[in-house]
């Protein structure tokens, strides 16, 4: 019986795995193929073309949206990671009485629907009469990224071997020296992971940005949504293909960067 059952399991596993992969990657594959399709609407293969890529680079609105996205992602990553580090370090002290409460406050936004966050931030900005635009989007992105960065860095710190800190103090190092030479380098993998996470979260956020950007400040997801609503899908295919390429590049680079940063410390 045993061999048959394992065989069956293996077969089932393989099938499920294949199905998941198909559903996950076929749409992306189709998207990539059709970005080279010489047709205004999706009607089947009409011949190879690069003209939509050309259009992409000539379109000022797209370029503006791209740079907006990068700016927001870059700044919000920088700020939310820095704040995440400080939060995690603050939460290190187990005797700090408000610890549980602060942890709960940090975890809550992760479970809150984006739409709730978006609407509440929009209400806040409206109520405080802050003009919506780049600034409000940035604030919004930092707000939802902090939870992620703080949690990622904090969970790395949980496993930190404090005897290393004692060993360094024993060898004559003062607290600040210990932080920069021992603790920070060992936190680095967590910090990089947190930064990457907040960067990708920021790049593809639509809902919260939608509620906090107002007119006149578009990020790529907002632009894409608007364009599709108007029915032109062709440049979107090529734009998406480029973004996929960019993501892959990022994944490859991260491994390198991490090594370089760690060895430099």
């Amino acid at each position, binding site marked *: 019986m045993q061999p048959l059952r394992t065989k069956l399991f293996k077969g089932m596993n393989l099938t499920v795995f294949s199905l998941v992969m198909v559903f996950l990657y076929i749409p992306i594959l189709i998207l990539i193929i059709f970005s080279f399709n010489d047709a205004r609407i999706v009607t089947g293969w009409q011949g190879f073309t690069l003209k939509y890529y050309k259009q992409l680079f000539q379109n000022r609105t797209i370029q503006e949206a791209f740079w907006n996205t990068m700016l927001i992602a870059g700044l919000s990553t920088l700020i939310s990671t820095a704040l995440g580090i400080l939060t995690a370090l603050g939460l290190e002290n187990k005797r700090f009485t408000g610890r549980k409460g602060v942890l709960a406050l940090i975890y809550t936004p992760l479970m809150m629907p984006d739409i709730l966050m978006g609407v509440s931030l929009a209400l806040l900005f409206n109520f405080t009469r802050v003009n919506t635009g780049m600034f409000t989007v940035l604030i919004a992105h930092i707000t939802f990224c902090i939870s992620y960065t703080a949690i990622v860095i904090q969970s790395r710190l949980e496993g930190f*071997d404090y*005897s*290393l800190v*004692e*060993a*360094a*103090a*024993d*060898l*004559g*190092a*003062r607290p600040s*020296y210990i932080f920069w*030479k*021992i603790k920070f*380098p*060992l936190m680095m993998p967590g910090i990089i992971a947190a930064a990457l996470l907040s960067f990708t979260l920021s790049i593809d956020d639509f809902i919260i940005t939608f509620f906090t950007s107002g007119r006149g400040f578009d990020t790529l997801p907002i632009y894409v949504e608007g364009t599709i609503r108007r029915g032109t899908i062709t440049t979107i295919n090529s734009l998406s293909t480029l973004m996929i390429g960019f993501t892959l590049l990022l994944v490859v680079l991260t491994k390198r960067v991490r090594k370089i940063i*760690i060895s430099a*410390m």
Partner: protein
Amino acid sequence: MADIILQNVSKDFGSFRAVDGVNLTINSGELFSFLGPSGCGKTTLLRMIAGFEIPSDGSIMLGQTEITDQAPYKREVNTIFQNYSLFPHMNLYDNVAFGLRVKKVAKAEIRDRVHEMLKLVKMEDQAQKFPNQISGGQKQRIAIARALINKPRVLLLDEPLAALDLKLRQHMLIELMNIHDAVGITFIYVTHDQSEAMSISDRLAVMNKGRIVQSGPPDDIYERPASIFSAYFIGDTNMIRGEVTAVHEDYLELNCPDGEGNYFDIDSCFQDAPEVGEHIMLSLRPEKIAISRKKPKEQDDINFVKGQIEDILYLGTHTQYIVRVGQLKFRVFSQHKRVYFDDEAPDWEEEVWLFWHDSDTWQIDFKESDILEAEELDEVSGMRRYLKRGKS
């Protein structure tokens, strides 16, 4: 010259007293050990000397300076941690150089001293490796180099060999002694392993429940244990209870019950002056007792007791006999010399004579409450039953 002076040092964790009124002077250049069972407060005491814990009471002096509340990084004391605590993101060279970099020593000097240290611990060819690429014994060596490069006055070692296997442990023990001889500074060594402490130390302190039970050179503690705890924690022993029948200048005469209504007489040396009629407790090390089927020639300074062999345990280097005398049980270690008093070794259930020199029976401090502890420490010969019955 005194290097470390502990004065009435105590440490409380909440309502729990981990270290209790320790008074001790450790001399400069000495290899001093704290020996005691797990949880007796050795690590806590060491951490107070290193500066990671502040004593709840008492003071600690390093030479002429009081360091009781001084921050760890200011003390001329370095530690070998129980799990080595090498910095995982630095190679071995950088690990060893850490202390000098902190002090901003010139690069060239750092290089020379790191190499000198790596040579001392025989790791000079592995400087570029990372801690996760070397074995436990090698980590140990690097931890020693990393500490000694700072030229501390005192090196603290917290069970440094506990994580190594037996062969490596014996090897590292000798190496540690060589390193101690080479650098000549004070080593304070913490262990729960009595043979380690005995072989490595100039002096040692036996600890129990946060207190120092006895301190002195290893042979002194072994030959003249002050209490049931020292007697059992270092080596094995036999406890004999007896009534003092005569007190002489350098020995006592005692009358000892065997638990079955019979008595035997022995002589013993003593530590404080007991009076005639007083009941005292004696310790007699198993290897001091000779065993024979024939009664040996009577001699003034030899004690004799007749018993019956209950158990024989062959242990390679020696044989352990359990010999019944009434309801008492004597543990006897007999080495496998080819020259016996008899032609051959005694057998199960045979009648034998036990005999030993007067001066090998040693009076120890004793409270009724210690008996429970003795039972924990010695399951083999059923001390407790023996002591209870022996009392009657």
